[in-house]
């Protein structure tokens, strides 16, 4: 009996392949997007953990000569006195289009963690090859690909532990690549040095010790970004579930006669429920597996962009290659099961409560009464209120997202009530019978379409909100870059001696040489940096000040005050007039706040004299140059002065690079945006298909009254477009509220900067057109079916015993 019943239940899917496809595709899509986001977040977290587990080169104190490289003999002298130090050579080379940062380590003395695992382990590389010409260079897989065939390089080995754009190699290989000729750049000093060695002053008095850097907590810094992604994943999953709910609801509805027959034949209600439950779980398993495969592909495609974003925004290194983790796949399958069961809960409940002898008449959909609509609207209002109060009562990113979620879901719940009101208004103003029928019939269909419309609204509001945020950010960012990049050329001297030579070479040739010298210091108990600037008109004219005092610049250049960036101002609650403790015996009054987008750390700017007074040993390598003929000066710097290409960048290129980083930052957002919208379009298609199969009884009388099938079809399309247009209009204010929320709440919490909001009506027009197009496309198939329905089918409606 049970077997026969199962066969009967499953036969439904054989007869309705499109429905099966809809169900599987919806669930697979939902699972895919959710899993993709999880995979990306997981990969990033693993990268942070790996980075935290091994100290980078910066995790060791180091000895360097202020004037640049030191001879190898200095290293040997220290070793022979018992110092446990290891030499490092660093520099940049250009191979084809690829800029490569080369780090040369000495494998016999370097701390173990610094060497790539493929060197230390058994990756089929003879470790001695590293020490023998032509040597071995370890680089990220994408860097190895980019360098394929480039001349003058050692044998390249892909190692995901090496950040992209860098190469780790033996010090001997690096010496040749970087033409260091017997010189080394610095010495890593291991913690816990033997105590019988002589003092540094006795052996190498010129060397200066740089303490180990705090590696920073990447996980904490990037939390907001990952929370962002997770929110997107959840949203996609929710939209996907709308589809699944529609498809499962339809399948249950259409099989009501079958359920009744099975029950009448003696199948216990419990067994029927168990069979249906098994069916849902089986479908969820299939869809979940598809979703995981799809999610893996999506994550793999997006990961390089995410990695680029994290590097650009936070300096966090995330490997661009996705690993496969069974735990992740199981979680994906589980979420598919949970989602399918949630979507089927309503249907299963109905079957459970169905009286044995209930009418076999298929209902178009569970009729939603006006009371139910009101209840839903009240729930929506409550959610919005909860979101707003959460953001008022609590601080932090979570509160920001609570506000976002409350407004979005609340608005979605309100939508059916709103649409019903508008349609009612239309019906009241309609005079001609056909128009009256059109409004009434549209209202009648609303319950069936409302879920799809809610999905569409979520997708549209998100799209408007995120696009507005990104576009506002872009506009602000480009404007800010124009202001902030005051110099024409940016140069980095090779060492302190080179810096002095460079400055004297430039005096007379350039209009101004602006030092970009900084020390890393904790500010307000968090990582920070302090820059010293010289008095120059470009700062007064261009620097992007958010808040200032009448004599901001005079105070700064007279060493009476400090300017701080918006992040620091926000985090430490500092405004002009407050005092900032910069270091031991160094406290200054805040005289201005400037915007500093894309910088995760707090920053302070003081007069150069003030910086030098407190930190005379600040590295004096980077400089901005203002010149009347920048290209000529850049050429002269390269050709006459002999500055390596890699140490010089002009304003245009720097700006282009910054914008590139910016664009890549939001590639992921854009891609998820498009995916969510497609899912919503799919939801409409599903709902319309569902309805079209049931609407024959309602359309047949209208057809019998003389309306041609073609006109009926046109009206159907019109109806879909009207609903989509109304949904768009409802989504617009919600989207703008979302954008405001992102710019003024989430951005401030996540990054510490508040962005002005700009409106982009042209974007809305485009999105509106896209919405109509999507609705029309979704409506095309059911409408075509309607237009081609044989008249005999319509007649059958009247002939059938009902």
């Amino acid at each position, binding site marked *: 009996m049970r077997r026969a019943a199962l066969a009967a239940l499953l036969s439904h899917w054989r007869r309705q392949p499109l429905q099966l496809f809809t169900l599987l595709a919806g669930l697979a899509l939902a699972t895919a997007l959710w899993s993709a986001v999880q995979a990306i977040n997981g990969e990033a977290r693993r990268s942070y953990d790996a980075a935290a587990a091994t100290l980078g080169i910066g995790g060791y104190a180091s000895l360097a000569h202020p004037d640049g490289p030191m001879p*190898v*003999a200095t*290293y*040997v002298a220290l*070793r*022979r*006195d*018992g110092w446990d130090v290891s030499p490092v050579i660093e520099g940049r080379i250009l191979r084809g289009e690829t800029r490569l940062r080369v780090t040369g380590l*000495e*494998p*016999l*003395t*370097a*701390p*173990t*963690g610094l*060497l790539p695992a493929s*060197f*230390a*382990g*058994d990756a089929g590389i*003879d*470790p*001695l090859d590293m*020490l*023998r*010409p032509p040597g071995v260079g370890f680089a990220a897989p994408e860097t190895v690909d980019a360098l394929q065939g480039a001349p003058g390089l050692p044998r390249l080995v892909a190692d995901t532990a090496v950040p992209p754009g860098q190469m780790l190699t*033996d*010090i*001997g290989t690096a*010496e040749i690549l970087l033409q260091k000729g*017997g010189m080394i750049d610095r010495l890593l000093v*291991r913690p816990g040095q*033997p105590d*019988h*060695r002589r003092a540094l002053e006795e052996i190498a008095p010129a060397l200066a010790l740089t303490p180990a850097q705090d590696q920073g907590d990447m996980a904490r810094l990037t939390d907001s970004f990952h929370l962002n992604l997770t929110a997107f994943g959840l949203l996609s999953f929710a939209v996907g579930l709308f589809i699944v709910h529609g498809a499962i609801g339809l399948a249950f509805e259409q099989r009501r006669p079958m359920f009744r027959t099975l029950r009448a034949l003696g199948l216990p209600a419990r067994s029927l429920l168990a069979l249906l439950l098994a069916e849902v779980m089986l479908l969820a398993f299939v869809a979940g597996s598809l979703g995981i495969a799809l999610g893996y592909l999506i994550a793999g495609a997006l990961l390089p962009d995410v990695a680029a974003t994290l590097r650009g925004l936070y300096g966090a290194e995330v490997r661009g290659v996705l690993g496969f983790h069974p735990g992740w796949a199981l979680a994906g399958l589980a979420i598919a099961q949970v989602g399918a069961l949630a979507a089927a809960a309503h249907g299963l409940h109905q079957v459970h409560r169905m009286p044995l002898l209930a009418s076999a008449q298929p209902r178009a959909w569970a009729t939603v009464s006006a009371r139910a609509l009101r209840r839903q609207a009240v729930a929506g209002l409550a959610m919005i209120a909860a979101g707003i109060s959460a953001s008022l009562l609590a601080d932090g990113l979570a509160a920001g997202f609570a506000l976002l979620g409350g407004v979005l879901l609340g608005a979605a719940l309100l939508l059916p009530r709103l649409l019903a009101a508008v349609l009612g208004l239309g019906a009241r103003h309609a005079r001609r019978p056909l128009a009256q029928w059109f409004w009434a019939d549209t209202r009648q269909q609303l319950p069936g379409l409302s879920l799809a419309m809610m999905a569409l609204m979520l997708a549209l509001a998100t799209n408007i909100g995120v696009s507005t945020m990104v576009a506002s950010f872009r506009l602000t960012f480009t404007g800010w870059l124009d202001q902030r990049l005051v110099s024409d050329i940016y140069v980095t001297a090779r060492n302190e001696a080179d810096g002095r030579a460079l400055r004297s070479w430039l005096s007379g040739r350039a209009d101004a040489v602006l030092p970009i010298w900084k020390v890393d210091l904790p500010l307000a108990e968090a990582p920070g940096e302090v820059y010293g600037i010289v008095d120059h008109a470009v700062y007064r004219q261009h620097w992007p000040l958010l808040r200032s005092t009448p004599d901001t610049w005079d105070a700064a250049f007279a060493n009476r005050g400090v300017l701080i960036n918006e992040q620091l101002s926000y985090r430490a609650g500092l405004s002009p007039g407050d005092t900032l403790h910069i270091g031991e015996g160094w406290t200054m009054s805040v005289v201005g706040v400037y915007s500093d987008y894309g910088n995760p750390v707090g920053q302070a700017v003081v007069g150069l004299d003030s910086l030098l007074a407190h930190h005379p040993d600040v590295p004096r390598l980077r400089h901005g140059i203002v010149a009347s003929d920048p290209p000529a000066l850049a050429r002269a710097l390269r050709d006459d002065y002999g500055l390596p290409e890699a140490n010089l960048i002009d304003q245009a290129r720097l700006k282009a690079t910054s914008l590139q980083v910016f664009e890549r930052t939001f590639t992921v957002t854009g891609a998820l945006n498009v995916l969510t919208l497609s899912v919503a379009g799919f939801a409409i298609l599903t709902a319309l298909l569902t309805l079209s199969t049931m609407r024959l009884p309602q359309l047949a009388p209208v057809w019998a009254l003389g309306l041609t099938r073609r006109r009926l079809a046109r009206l159907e399309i019109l109806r879909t477009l009207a609903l989509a247009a109304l949904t768009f209009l409802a989504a617009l204010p919600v989207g703008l509220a979302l954008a405001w929320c992102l710019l003024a709440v989430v951005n401030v919490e996540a990054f510490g900067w508040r962005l002005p909001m700009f409106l982009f009506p042209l974007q809305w027009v485009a999105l509106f057109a896209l919405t109509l197009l999507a609705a029309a496309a979704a409506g095309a198939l059911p409408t075509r079916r309607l237009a081609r329905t044989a008249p005999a089918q319509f007649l059958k409606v009247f002939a059938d015993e009902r």
Partner: protein
Amino acid sequence: MRDSLARQFGRPPLALCALLVGLSFMVSAPASPQGFAGLGTEAEGFALPSREIPLTFPADHGAHPDFRIEWWYLTANLAGADGEEYGVQWTLFRSALAPEPDAPVEGWASPQIWMAHAALTSRDTHRSAEKLARGGIGQAGVTADPFAAWIDDWHMSGTGTGADALDSLNLTAHGADFSYALTLDADGPLVLQGEGGYSVKSPGGQASHYYSQPFYRVAGTLTLDDTDIPVTGHGWLDREWSSQPLAETQDGWDWISLHFDSGEKLMGFRLRDRTGPPFTSATWIATDGTPAPYGNGALILTPLAESAEEIPVRWQVDLPAHGLSVEIGALNPDAWMDTSFPYWEGPVSITGSHTGRGYLEMTGYGE
């Protein structure tokens, strides 16, 4: 414990060290067919040991960069004022990754790699340390006259007061939890091992250049866990260099250097062969330094008892030609060298037909 120590000291990659040590001990390196069969042929561009080349001093105290491998190997049996026994090891290995052209290569490109081991053994504890260095930059090296061998701040240097550059030495090394500073003065001449310093290592004819200074009187201070211990005793320096790997079937060796109370000395080794009987060799050294070399089979080394790590720490040593029948036993059975490539090396005491102290080294066990 060994693992955690290794991590603490931040060792270079194991694979690298294993290979270096493998080369240094002339075991586990791949044997080329030419190397096995023909003695006259060059081993991949390296110089080869030859009977025809007499050793010359002090030049041969220095490095031979044209050979693949070489070592300066010092062991000492010491005793404190209270009679408590100690053993000390100081070893510098040189290994060439590739044949050096006529002029030595300066800088990072030098194919020479240096490695050193230091150890201090008492009845209760065994401490060891390891150092690695690149050649070509002066971080490690050996000069012949005046004699100096060093790696970082460990060194063995001649004081230049004796007839030979090796006659008087200062010796220092330290690990995280031990150190020593010793002076060594030779009471006898250098001793050439094998046939005038040409020491055969297998029936196939593989060989090395090998001489010793076994007559050191030693005095100085050991520091163990911040306690200074004045000591005196006997020391033995081995010098050996070669280019040929052993036969592929030889996977380890047992080596002894014994100071008898009579003033006589014995050097002996046994190269274990997977496919047949071991290859043995010995040199009996009279009190005046006159060596009596013995070829394969004359010396019989028989393992008697194994330590917890399944390595024989007591041996029966027989050299019938000299009426020698003694038993040697480890002062501390747990004298494993906690180095990248572990081996056993520690002081032994001698009982039987002769008495005295000595050193035992065993490699290739427990792999």
